[in-house]
């Protein structure tokens, strides 16, 4: 058999190996050493040591002799076991216990000093013992304490005295001895210790450092990156959860308020039923007597429809250069007429009176019916009530449709009354209420009655309507209108302002040109025409001039400011819709027109101031509100255009605007008297601040606080020197309700003789406390309102979640 010609199979550890003893060993010739076939196992030694002489010798000896030989043993340094004093050293005997020795944990700590006295110490002790008694253990304890209390720095004698509970003399003696000994000591301590590692890693290679701590490094290293990422994720999760909590809490609050409203409305209806007030007369009376209350309540109703502002904007979207505090009222009325025929029989008479709290609530309640806690923003969701009306609606697809969640304001008293009286008129209103006299900038002409809608992509569609006045209207020179409109709008737009009953009514009456003009002049006829932003300046001044009058009563002030806020907000909300409009249609034309208007307005400013100041309080307040609103919308156009289009020309325009507004604001800040306070602020808000707010928001991002910033901007002069502080304060705000008071205050302040930027800042800073002070929930609701439009204006920056947060 050729011994080496085959290749043996690998050794299988699981395969049985037969064992052959010496006597029955197979023929050695047949037996092949497999050392080559089985891989040599490592010895497990370091390679270079494997070859050491003595080891090799020993291994060979073992292999040769199968037994260790004395001479072949690996030599080692000698060890002796002849310590003769051993028995003296280790005294006593230790008896082996029967049981296995079991150590109790921690019973080894018998608090013995680690320091062991040496012969030098013994000498000292002997010396000391002549004067006093000191035992070795006592001494050791002292030294031990001194050693353990000092690191590189020795403890002082004073410290030593505190450490050692001994006689002062003894302490002094031992201390001095210790200090001396320590100085001569070669080691770091008199108690020899293993060198410790230092954290800086400088001892990594020090051979005398031992027993280093094992760091956690190994365990975390693999996943360190993951750890970081997951930590961040956790943070984010937490943030989002807390946001969800906030949202839910707000929803809860909202639903509670809704229920309250419902109860109140029911109560009112009940009361009216008992009174037999089926026509709403009593209600109207009550309402008439308390016009301001309505103002304050209006905002309260607002907060529900926040998410549907856009629709509202379309509807009431004024582009009207006029004021209109009553826009809301008007709008509400509109919607009620066409939409609720059922109710009309009973309720219609009330509708005019909707301004009173209960009625308003009622409308709100209806909204609730449709979408209570349903946050859907789908405009298509048909409301059960409105559907049947649609068929009757002559406007067809263009008809106004009441939208769930929208807020509609009650009509002005005078208008409502009027319309109520004349059913025919009312009828007509149904058809035309939205058409108003419209002027185009380019080509510059009056196109008669028209109604504006927002079409696809935000373009504005003018629905013209033929009236008997058409021939007359054609003669109207836009310039004529301009001169009027600016003034008239500001004066008393509320009555007939928007494409509401008032205007319609006028149309129907087949007025002559002069009549129309006079109507326009007196602001009874609504006239639409794009305006220059600069208009606002004048308007604002007018408004502010009126403001002092409004501030007579607290309620007034709040109401007015509220209204202002609302309007400003609405204006801004308008922005969303208008932005695109403006951008895509006649942006530049509008700018031109507005310039012209501005020029005209400026001419008329003085006279207006005086006249406006003499206005009745109620009207004044309302008009101012209206005005602010329109102004806002106009300014909102700009803000929006700036944001959306940002074309060079409009840009420059914007900057211009800002400049002017700056001036105004400065005027506000400085006690500049009546002429420019409140409105200028508002204007500032709505125009340049509107822009800047928008821009700001854009840049800042989507966080809640950031959304608050524009809110503050609307109320607080953004261009103020104190801007920054205000803004920062705003940023710190957590609550809308917190912001709202600020707005109020600021507005109030602007009307005050000397509001300073500093004060604004302080107000902003102290805002936390303000909400409690302000009595009505209206304010908070206002605040909410305030923000929403802005958000809308921000073209989608606002998200549902954010909106929820704000509410």
């Amino acid at each position, binding site marked *: 058999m050729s011994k080496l010609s085959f290749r043996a199979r690998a050794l299988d550890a699981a395969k049985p190996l*037969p064992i052959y003893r010496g006597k029955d*060993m*197979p023929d050695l010739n047949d037996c092949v*050493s497999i050392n080559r076939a089985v891989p040599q196992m490592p010895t497990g030694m370091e390679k270079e040591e494997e070859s050491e002489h003595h080891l090799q*010798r020993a291994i060979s000896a*073992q292999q040769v*002799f199968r037994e260790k030989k004395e001479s072949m043993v690996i030599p080692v340094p000698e060890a002796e076991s002849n310590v003769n004093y051993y028995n003296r050293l280790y005294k006593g005997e230790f008896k082996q216990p029967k049981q296995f020795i079991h150590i109790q944990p921690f019973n080894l700590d018998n608090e*013995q*000093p680690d320091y062991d006295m040496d012969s030098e110490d013994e000498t000292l002790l002997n010396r000391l013992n002549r004067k006093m008694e000191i035992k070795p253990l006592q001494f050791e304890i002292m030294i031990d304490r001194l050693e353990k209390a000092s690191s590189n720095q020795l403890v002082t004698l004073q410290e030593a005295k505190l450490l050692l509970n001994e006689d002062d003399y003894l302490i002094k003696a031992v201390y001095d001895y210790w200090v001396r000994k320590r100085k001569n000591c070669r080691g770091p301590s008199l108690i020899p210790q293993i060198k410790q590692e230092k954290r800086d890693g400088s001892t990594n290679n020090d051979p005398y450092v031992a027993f280093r701590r*094992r760091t956690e490094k190994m365990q975390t290293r693999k996943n360190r990156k993951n750890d970081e990422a997951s930590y961040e994720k956790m943070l984010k999760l937490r943030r989002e959860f807390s946001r969800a909590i906030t949202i839910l809490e707000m929803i809860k609050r909202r639903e509670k308020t809704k229920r309250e409203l419902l109860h109140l409305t029911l109560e009112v209806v009940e009361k009216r039923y008992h009174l037999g007030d089926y026509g709403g007369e009593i209600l109207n009376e009550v309402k008439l007597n308390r016009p301001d209350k309505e103002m304050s309540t209006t905002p309260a109703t607002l907060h529900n429809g926040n998410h549907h502002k856009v629709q509202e904007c379309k509807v009431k979207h004024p582009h009207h250069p006029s004021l209109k505090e009553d826009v809301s009222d008007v709008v509400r009325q509109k919607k009620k007429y066409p939409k609720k025929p059922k109710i009309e029989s009973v309720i219609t008479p009330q509708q005019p009176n909707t301004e009173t709290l209960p009625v308003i609530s009622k409308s709100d309640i209806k909204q609730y019916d449709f979408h209570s806690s349903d946050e859907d923003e789908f405009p298509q969701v048909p409301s059960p009530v409105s559907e049947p009306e649609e068929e009757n609606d002559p406007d067809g697809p263009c008809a106004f449709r009441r939208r769930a969640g929208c807020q509609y304001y009650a009509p002005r008293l005078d208008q409502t009354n009027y319309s109520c009286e004349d059913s025919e008129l009312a009828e007509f209103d149904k058809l035309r209420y939205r058409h108003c006299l419209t002027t185009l900038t380019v080509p510059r002409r009056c196109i008669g009655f028209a109604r504006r809608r927002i079409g696809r992509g935000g373009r504005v569609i003018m629905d013209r309507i033929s009236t008997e006045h058409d021939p007359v209207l054609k003669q109207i020179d836009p310039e004529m209108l301009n001169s009027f409109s600016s003034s008239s709008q500001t004066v008393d737009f509320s009555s007939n302002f928007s494409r509401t009953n008032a205007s319609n009514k006028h149309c129907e009456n087949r007025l002559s040109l002069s009549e129309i003009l006079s109507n326009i002049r007196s602001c009874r006829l609504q006239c639409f025409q794009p305006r220059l932003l600069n208009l606002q300046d004048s308007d604002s001044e007018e408004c502010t001039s009126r403001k002092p009058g409004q501030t007579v009563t607290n309620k007034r002030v709040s109401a007015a400011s509220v209204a202002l806020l609302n309007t400003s907000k609405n204006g801004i909300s308008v922005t969303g819709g208008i932005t695109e409009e403006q951008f895509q249609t006649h942006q530049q034309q509008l700018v031109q027109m507005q310039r012209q208007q501005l020029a005209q307005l400026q001419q008329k400013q003085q006279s207006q101031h005086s006249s406006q100041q003499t206005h009745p309080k109620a009207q004044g307040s309302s008009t101012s509100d209206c005005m602010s609103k329109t102004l806002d919308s106009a300014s909102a156009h700009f803000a929006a255009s700036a944001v959306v289009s940002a074309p060079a020309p409009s840009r420059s325009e914007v900057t211009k605007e800002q400049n002017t507004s700056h001036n105004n604001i400065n005027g506000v800040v400085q006690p500049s008297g009546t002429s420019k306070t409140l409105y200028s602020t508002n204007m500032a808000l709505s125009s340049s601040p509107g822009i800047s707010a928008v821009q700001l928001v854009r840049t800042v991002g989507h966080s809640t606080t950031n959304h608050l910033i524009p809110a503050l901007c609307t109320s607080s002069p953004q261009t103020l020197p104190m801007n920054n502080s205000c803004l920062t304060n705003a940023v710190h705000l957590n609550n809308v309700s917190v912001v709202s008071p600020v707005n109020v205050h600021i507005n109030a302040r602007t009307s005050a003789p000397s509001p300073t930027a500093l004060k604004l800042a302080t107000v902003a800073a102290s805002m936390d406390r303000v909400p409690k002070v302000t009595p009505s929930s209206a304010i908070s609701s206002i605040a909410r309102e305030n923000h929403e439009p802005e958000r809308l204006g921000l073209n989608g920056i606002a998200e549902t979640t954010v909106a929820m947060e704000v509410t």
Partner: protein
Amino acid sequence: MAEVGEVTEGCRLPVLRRNQDNEDEWPLAEILSVKDISGRKLFYVHYIDFNKRLDEWVTHDRLDLKKIQFPKKEAKTPTKNGLPGSRPSSPEREVRKTLDLSLQPASTPASGKTLPIPVQITLRFNLPKEREAVPGEPDQPLSSSSCVQPNHRTTKRKVEVVSPATPVPASTETTQASVFPQNGSARRAVAAQPGRKRKSNCLGTDEDSQDSSDGIPSAPRMTGSLVSDRSHDDIITRMKNIECIELGRHRLKPWYFSPYPQELTTLPVLYLCEFCLKYVKSLKCLQRHLTKCDLRHPPGNEIYRKGTISFFEIDGRKNKSYSQNLCLLAKCFLDHKTLYYDTDPFLFYVMTEYDCKGFHIVGYFSKESTEDYNVACILTLPPYQRRGYGKLLIEFSYELSKVEGKTGTPEKPLSDLGLLSYRSYWSQTILEILMNLKSENGERPQITINEISEITSIKKEDVISTLQYLNLINYYKGQYILTLSEDIVDGHERAMLKRILRIDSKCLHFTPKDWSKRGKW
């Protein structure tokens, strides 16, 4: 002929040494350090190809100055502290050195007496630095360093093996030692490669878990008790620092460096409390300590007792001071032991012998939670060596493994004595089994390697290596067989007669630690 004053660190020359047989020898030695004590120069010498434990301080009259070899000029003398960083590492130099190494022996006249090659010594000193910068093995700087080192050393050693200055009895100098310098170094250079691979294989698990990816060679791996590499090897740790240790009745001459507090290293004798192993600087201190220390046994639970032999289990986490003291003492006799990290992950099993004074420590082994190893460090104190205690310790460690139901192997690297002891234990244990196998129904008795492993708790690889070492495995008629030759059987029977001390598993009261609860460290 050189002057005594010229003898510096790095020089090589024959040094007089008395062997066990009381004969004078002149093995080649290397000067590791020079010190001057009251005008008298002392030289710390390492006898090349002898274990470090034989290194010693010698006077000049034991030096054969006629044959001195100075270190090469370019090679710097090793610095006293030898810490890495004193010289910038340069890969080119490293390469050149390696070339030198392989070329030099060939160019050396093979005229019987080999010329010592001082270059290599400096290489060795500088290895820590140079290793850190060795390119080409970026993934595992640590393991690479651990591999490079033996490579160099091996090469160096090989050259020196043939040094005739070492009077080795020809009878014991077997083939492995009789290597000509010419092919010796060449062969080694090649052989070092597989050896290196093998090594990294056998330590593979540890090195994987080690800081392999960090590239920071500053800290060694945290598992295990033995140095896996020589990156922290410097001149300080290569020299014994304690002259003598007094432990109970015994005076021990340490074999290796141990990081006792530095101020104690200059003492002629370091005193240890026999029971708590506390180190004190003087007899007086020890006396004082003994008045306060009432221990008469290791501070742990006794888990085995038969006759005078007991085993105590000490938790390195719970009893730090004893564990540390034990490690410091053990380090004096264990070259590869590392005290770099704390003792937390280890359990210590201390074997004691009882007499009326108490339970005297004989030896110990430590154990870590690591899967494969059932022993981290193992030591029989020198006074008890060569009396069967080592084998008893090993046997006990396998008894524990049996209780745990696992096979185990000692952590590597083994020392020379460790290898001999383990081989002896493995051989005897396996032979015992093989010889006691009875044939069943007339057939030849047979057994698998796995079965042997299960019965003994000896890891399979160790079983194979032992069978191999004993030359028992043969290939016969298409299958592997185990052959028990006469002399093997005789040798085993003779050895077993001498082996009186045995572990009685009935005396073991041991519950394995729940390592998972204990945590890895």
